[in-house]
């Protein structure tokens, strides 16, 4: 790893939000050549503008409505190394990772930090850097364009962490399904964070579905080493008319991982799209999902499930922007917060003036298990059209005492009964998963998570070196 160009500037004392930003600005200024040489022209073309904008606006502060629950600057403050000279980190993913989904035939892609390892060619899938060389026109047409297509994003501009990603991202994944085609198997992307020193990873994913295309994509995040990781991820998704996409994101890292993921999606007409975000184990996670429904009669389902304990912090921030009429959106997020965990959910549904006949439903349910855990929920409706059916509901509560009592009467121990109820609580989200084998696997993982046995699968090296023992799952 010493051979790597681990570039970092010493951390200066914190003054407002400016100093965290300046270490990245300086780094970019000094290493611009290196960053560009490790990437491709299409990606390099937008770097300077992004950095310029970042230098002007810096990191978002807690005073900004969309960032009120996560202090971005603090997460970006430590001194991380970056693998700018693209040194291959020696890793055999098959050796270290075997926790794939049984009974599910998938095409597997390993992403070590941000570099894809394609063992055999998979149709429609390539590394972003390679795609820039093979199909520069297609990448140029879509790369970094989502933010300008989604009106609510272009109004305010992207956040600081997105700009940083655009400035520093050198590689990532590119999925392009041409018109009328469909992927034979679901695509499973296993992101493995691997580094001997504290590391910042900027990963970029670009998914383009042309008219009538179909795809199922599963993105899993894992951390192999116990050092601190900071990942920024920007996923841009373009769904043209009549396309179908199921996108799953699963995070299973450790408590010193910080993840900033931004999903930006535009959906054409007559599409059926689903997005499932599952946070099983993490440190600090901020997931932003912005979806613009630009074509008529499309349907979007967004589900999320969070299990957090210790001092984990999960912040889900979603926006569904109904621009075109007659679209349907369904959103369901569930969260269990234990110990000193913080869970935030802010979902905004925006129905624009012309989006008549919109049907929208947003639900957020939370369980707060201790008096030190904290739950924030903020389901928002912003409606400018009159012929719509919109509703939202959110709850924060405790396990149903009557159900607990009922089960105890029937000889189920209280701890077990609690576990069953918690499983059932988040199970509602898992049930929305369309792939049966994945659904079973997730039920299994969630159950293990609540039992505090997530690190005991012993299937691979990945699960072994957790820095601290996992809690025994309160009440379990």
């Amino acid at each position, binding site marked *: 790893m010493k051979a790597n160009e681990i570039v970092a500037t010493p951390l200066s004392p914190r003054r407002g939000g400016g100093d965290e930003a300046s270490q990245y600005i300086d780094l970019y200024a000094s290493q611009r050549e290196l960053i560009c040489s490790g990437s491709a022209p299409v990606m390099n073309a937008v770097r300077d503008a992004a950095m310029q904008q970042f230098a002007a606006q810096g990191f978002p502060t807690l005073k900004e*409505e969309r960032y009120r629950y996560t202090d971005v600057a603090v997460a970006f403050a430590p001194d991380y190394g970056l693998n700018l000279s693209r040194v291959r980190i020696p890793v055999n993913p098959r050796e270290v990772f075997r926790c794939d989904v049984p009974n599910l035939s998938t095409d597997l892609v390993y992403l070590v930090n941000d570099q894809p390892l394609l063992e055999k060619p998979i149709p429609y899938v390539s590394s972003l850097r390679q795609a820039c060389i093979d199909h520069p026109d297609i990448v140029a047409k879509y790369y970094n364009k989502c933010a300008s297509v989604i009106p609510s994003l272009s109004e305010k501009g992207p956040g600081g962490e997105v700009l940083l990603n655009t400035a520093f991202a050198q590689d990532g994944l590119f999925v392009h399904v041409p018109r009328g085609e469909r992927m034979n198997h679901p695509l499973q992307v296993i992101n493995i964070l691997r580094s001997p020193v504290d590391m910042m990873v900027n990963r970029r994913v670009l998914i383009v579905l042309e008219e009538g295309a179909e795809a199922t994509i599963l993105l899993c995040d894992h951390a192999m080493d116990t050092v601190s990781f900071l990942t920024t991820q920007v996923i841009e998704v373009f769904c043209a008319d009549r396309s179908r996409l199921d996108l799953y994101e699963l995070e299973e890292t450790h408590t010193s991982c910080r993840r900033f993921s931004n999903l930006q999606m535009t959906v054409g007409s007559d599409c059926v799209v689903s997005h499932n975000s599952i946070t099983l184990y993490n440190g600090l996670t901020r997931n932003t999902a912005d979806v613009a429904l630009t074509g008529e009669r499309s349907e979007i389902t967004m589900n999320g499930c969070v299990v957090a304990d210790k001092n984990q912090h999960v912040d889900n921030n979603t926006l569904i922007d109904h621009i075109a009429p007659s679209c349907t959106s369904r959103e369901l997020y569930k969260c269990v917060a234990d110990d000193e965990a913080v869970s935030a959910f802010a979902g905004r549904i925006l129905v624009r*003036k012309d989006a*008549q006949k919109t049907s929208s439903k947003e639900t957020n349910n*939370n369980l*707060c*298990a*201790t*008096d*030190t*855990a*904290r*739950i*924030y*929920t*903020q*389901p*928002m*409706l*912003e*409606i*400018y*059209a*009159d*012929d*719509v*059916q*919109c*509703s*939202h*509901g*959110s*709850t*924060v*509560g*405790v396990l149903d005492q009557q159900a607990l009592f009922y089960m105890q009467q029937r000889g189920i121990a209280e701890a077990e009964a609690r576990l069953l109820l918690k499983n059932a609580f988040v199970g509602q989200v898992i049930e929305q998963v369309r792939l049966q084998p994945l659904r079973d696997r997730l039920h299994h993982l969630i159950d293990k998570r609540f039992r505090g046995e997530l690190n005991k699968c012993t299937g691979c090296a990945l699960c072994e070196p957790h820095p601290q023992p996992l809690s025994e799952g309160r009440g379990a």
Partner: protein
Amino acid sequence: MSDKDLNKDKLSGPAQPLSENRNAREERDGNASAETSNDFVRRIAEQKYQFGFTTDVHTEVIDRGLNEDVVRLISQKKGEPDWLLQFRLEAFRYWQSQEQPSWGHLRLPDIDYQDISYYADPTARKADGPKTLDDIDPEVMKTFDKLGIPLEERLALSGTAVDAVMDSVSVKTTFKERLSERGIIFCSISEAVREYPDLVRQYLGSVVPYRDNYFAALNSAVFSDGSFVYIPKNTRCPMELSTYFRINARNTGQFERTLIVCDEGSYVSYLEGCTAPMRDENQLHAAIVEIVVLDNAKVKYSTVQNWYPGDSEGRGGVLNLVTKRGHLRGRNSRLSWTQVETGSAITWKYPSCVLSGDGSQAEFYSVAVTNNHQQADTGTKMIHLGRNTRSTIISKGISAGHSENSYRGLVRVGRHADGARNYSSCDSLLFGNLCGAHTFPYMDVQNPTATAEHEATTSKINEDQLLYCNQRGISTEDAVGLIVNGYAKDVLNKLPMEFAVEAQKLLQVSLEGTVG
């Protein structure tokens, strides 16, 4: 009973007030047969804001502008003790260090705080203020007549005590004697500062400190007058207390300050109603209402707000930037806010409750109507600190024309608020596709035994219900009135009788001409 009969029964209830209105009007016009309900609706819809008149009273207005000297001058004019002057000055210095907030879903115009006069005294000519009804300026009395406040003996029949605030100085307080027999204090806050300094000093700023927000700081620095209510222990206030606020002199902001203290085991119901004359420039209204509820006491606070909303082009109108908060300090104390908001160009108002007494209960019922270019960002805060506290939020928003109507509410459950419960429900109704209806609920829960629920819906007026009414010969305008009143019924039912009637009329008048 058949289904048909059932429906008939449902209809006959709300339809009643409509026909009553019409009858009353027809009698007055002496033209009972000619006027159809459509004509009536059209006439009302075209009607200009009927309370938009200006009373020509001699007013002592100080020069425009705001600085420490103005604060000192206001304090001096009111003959205030030094501690209150210091309170004002501290607030003023804090205000100077702050910026006007911009987080609301509002397009707040730039307010030139130096272009406003901060004090106007309609009774300045009379040295000691009016002593009897005859002492009151006849013009002022006429104003109140036009507003329909029965300040004289008529009051006895309605059983209401009115502390009429015109501009900044309390003109006349009625029924004071009857109230004082029971030890109830109901007077202007300036009088309270003179007569009951200890009480005022103990509670003033204890619920809404001047550091609370920008407009609270401004109010704390320059508040001119307002009402003070103190209900002694174990006393049930025999009548509903009521204040009428009205902005009169041109370009004077109204900065009232209301303080209500309900001592152990007592009960009071307080009404506040607002109308303001027509003006072209925006008028600033930054009030503070503080309510303290002690052990086993209950306070009911009702507002009908009908300030001038600006014309149909969105010119003028009152800026209503108000901080209202109740502190439920005592065990099992109760506080209920009910508001009907139909006026103001901009409403920025969050009547809140801090539930720190164990077992305390708070309620918030609100109907907010916006039409033309009105903007409202209103809601509540329920801050649960004590054990077994409960809160209910029912909010109904109605938006029409080019208006924006937002509900913004916070439910916070602190770490020690075991068994806290909250239920929030906010519905929005949209008329036309040029307006907006928004919901921004915030929940922040830190206790494993607490339950908080929020639900909201947004939809347009139900076509089936309209058709059903039309089929039965009820015109669309009347049907809208019926449906809206039914929609807002949960809230209107919580209003005291006199207000409920007024509110129902207001809703109808505010929305006429929006459908069909």
